[in-house]
């Protein structure tokens, strides 16, 4: 027993030593990107494929010699969607002057770290909280703000309503997670609905992790909803539609979903039940993402067959492209030696209009804009596939309609 223990300990020690040896071999010129992501918690279904895209893109850039000779180090931390863990992780790395960007993949975590970011004169990325557009600071959002995209969804609903030959305005239901993210869409989205004279039913909220949504859906259906927007991060939107299908509501009501679902994951499980649902996205999804050569070439190179391909991978690549564009601009302005987080913050505001291989609309970061882009596309599930039903549509400014 003692001998076996010694052998086991020796193996563990050998692994640790080899890891330390490998990790200590750092590059002469290197900058860091800290990803505070949820790899094993409730939104891992979104975070894992997104960070895979980012990781592969950075690998590719480094393999080609980096950005003007500067290599990028991706530090991926598993926060498990826990604010305390994320704050602790940020504090671990915040004194690194070459840490240029922090991607906080959660509204709550982004808010917790925002003050530290301001103090450290660095740049933070968060999913889509419009508050960061309303109060301009060092926190930037990935695409259009949640409320802007929801407003664009309402525009599409109006068009669809008219296309169906209906008069007046439709009744729209809203069901989402009962947390800051779930409620964010209505901060400006509600005012936009009023502007369009759309009757928005009292919103239904449920705790993240809820498995059955019948009660919320039934209430909205009984209130006369013509359209229902189902929020949350996949698998939640998939599960909501699954329940709506079981209740027979998908035949009578048009369901729409947002940025985070359904993804390829949900589609692989409930393709039949998701048939006909509409989805809006600021990055390419489904078949369109599969047809984007830049995205699929990278996937094939690092991940092999496209069988398990997820469109969210492209979004992660777009983060990488934006980072590289920002880094180029920052290096041009101050050079590597003087490069700090503040220079990257300034550089991100100068890459307005930067194109990301068509994966996402043109970059909209500017001195007066924290939005990653201003366009979304509408998709629909048809024959078990996510296909586009519109071109890029401009998102209205719903953030400015709300008093933050």
């Amino acid at each position, binding site marked *: 027993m003692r001998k076996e223990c010694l052998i086991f300990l020796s193996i563990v020690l050998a692994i640790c030593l080899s*890891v330390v040896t490998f990790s200590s071999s750092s590059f002469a010129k290197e900058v860091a990107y800290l990803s505070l992501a949820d*790899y094993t918690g409730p939104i891992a279904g979104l975070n894992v494929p997104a960070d895979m895209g980012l990781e592969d893109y950075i690998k590719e850039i480094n393999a080609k010699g980096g950005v003007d000779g500067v290599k990028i180090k*991706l530090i991926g931390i598993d926060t498990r969607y826990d*604010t305390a863990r994320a*704050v*602790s992780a940020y504090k671990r790395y915040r004194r690194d002057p070459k840490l240029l960007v922090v991607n906080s993949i*959660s509204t709550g975590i982004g808010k917790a770290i925002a003050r530290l970011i301001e103090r450290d004169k660095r740049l933070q990325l968060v999913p889509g909280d419009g508050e960061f557009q309303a109060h301009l600071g060092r926190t930037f959002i990935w695409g259009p703000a949640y409320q802007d995209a929801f407003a664009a969804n309402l525009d599409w609903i109006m068009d669809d309503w008219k296309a169906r030959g209906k008069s007046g305005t439709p009744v729209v239901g809203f069901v989402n997670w009962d947390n800051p993210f779930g409620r964010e869409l209505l901060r400006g989205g509600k005012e936009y609905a009023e502007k369009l004279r759309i009757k928005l039913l009292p919103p239904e909220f449920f705790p993240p992790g809820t498995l059955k949504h019948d009660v919320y859906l039934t209430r909205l259906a009984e209130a006369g909803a013509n359209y229902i927007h189902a929020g949350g991060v996949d698998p939640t939107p998939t599960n909501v539609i699954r329940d709506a299908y079981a209740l027979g509501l998908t035949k009578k009501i048009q369901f729409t979903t947002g940025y985070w679902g359904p993804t390829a994951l949900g589609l692989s499980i409930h393709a039949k039940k998701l048939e006909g649902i509409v989805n809006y996205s600021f990055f390419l999804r489904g078949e369109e993402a599969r047809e984007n050569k830049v995205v699929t070439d990278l996937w094939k190179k690092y991940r092999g067959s496209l069988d398990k391909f997820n469109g969210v991978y492209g979004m992660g690549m777009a983060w990488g492209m934006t980072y590289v564009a920002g880094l180029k601009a920052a290096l041009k302005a101050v050079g590597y030696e003087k490069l700090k987080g503040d220079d990257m913050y300034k550089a991100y505001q100068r890459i307005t209009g930067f194109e990301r291989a068509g994966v996402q609309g043109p970059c909209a970061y500017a001195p007066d804009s924290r939005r990653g882009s201003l366009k979304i596309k509408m998709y629909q599930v048809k024959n078990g596939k996510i296909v586009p039903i519109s071109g890029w549509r401009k998102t209205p400014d719903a953030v400015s309609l709300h008093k933050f």
Partner: protein
Amino acid sequence: MRPCGVFDKSYALDIAIIRTWQHWVILISALILLYLFPLFGSYYLISFINSLAITVIVVLGLQIVSGYCGQISFGQDAFMAIGAYTSAILTIKLGFPFWIALPLSGIVAGAIGIIGGAPSLRIKGMYLAMATIAIHFVVIWLILHLEITGSFKGLYPLPPSLGGFEFDTDERMYYIIMTTMVIMTYAARNLIRTKVGRAFVAIRDNDLAGEVMGVNLYYYKLLSFFIACFYAGIAGSLWAHLITVVNSEQFTLMHALEYIGMLIIGGMGSIPGVFFGVLFIRILNEVVMFTSPVLAGALPWLGTSPAAALGLTAFGLAVVIFLIFEPRGLAHRWEIFKASYRLYPFAY
């Protein structure tokens, strides 16, 4: 077990926490080291110790209600949230200074804890655990829906200040957090030697026997909940002013489960056990969290997210191995160690 050659010659010595001059030397040296640490410790270590100390305060409270009084509670993180929000509301909306808000947060959390502890009068064990889980969800729901708590937007408390001096960095907050932790530990250590502490232990070991001996179950069970929630409230207040933002997503049931795990690993019914449990879990968590990027860097074929999952597996494995080989907690191992060196060269 007494150290070799140390005899209790008086009642005072019998109940003393610090028995020998060596103990005093160790204690004073440790305190000096603790307070001088920010002068030479790295920023990251200081910030880590801050969060460690806040967790120690929360788990000390849980040790009192669960480890000593035998009432299982999964509501500790919710009461920490109550403390955090109370402190934020008192300082932001009512203009109270932090120094007043800190104890008041504990009192408010304790008072609400009495309501939360009320089911313990009728139910025990897993049933009580379920009731406290319900309390957690009710508290978080209320936080998310009340206007006074800032609803889903949360609140932004400011760092404490004293005479114009702002405790706005981790290094500065360290002194407040450490002092509070030392006081709370001393209070907890003393509490268990009092009549109240003995009543708690009597309830834990056999509540019916305790009642027959004159222990008022109604009073002492609620008192244990009050004290536990008071501790959680104090920790919540410290957390709120350290991080300067509070929202409902910061307080999860996972934390409450982790606190129970810390008690089991450290040792139920032991104050040093709280420190062992918190240190073990938090250090393991931290090692796992920071080993993943190193692993991903050293083994690129593994990828970032699988490396993180590997870390999580290592964490689970460590806990399972630990539970198999030392189910009575690290505090028990510590007791064996102390006994062996005190009786050296004889076997314990």
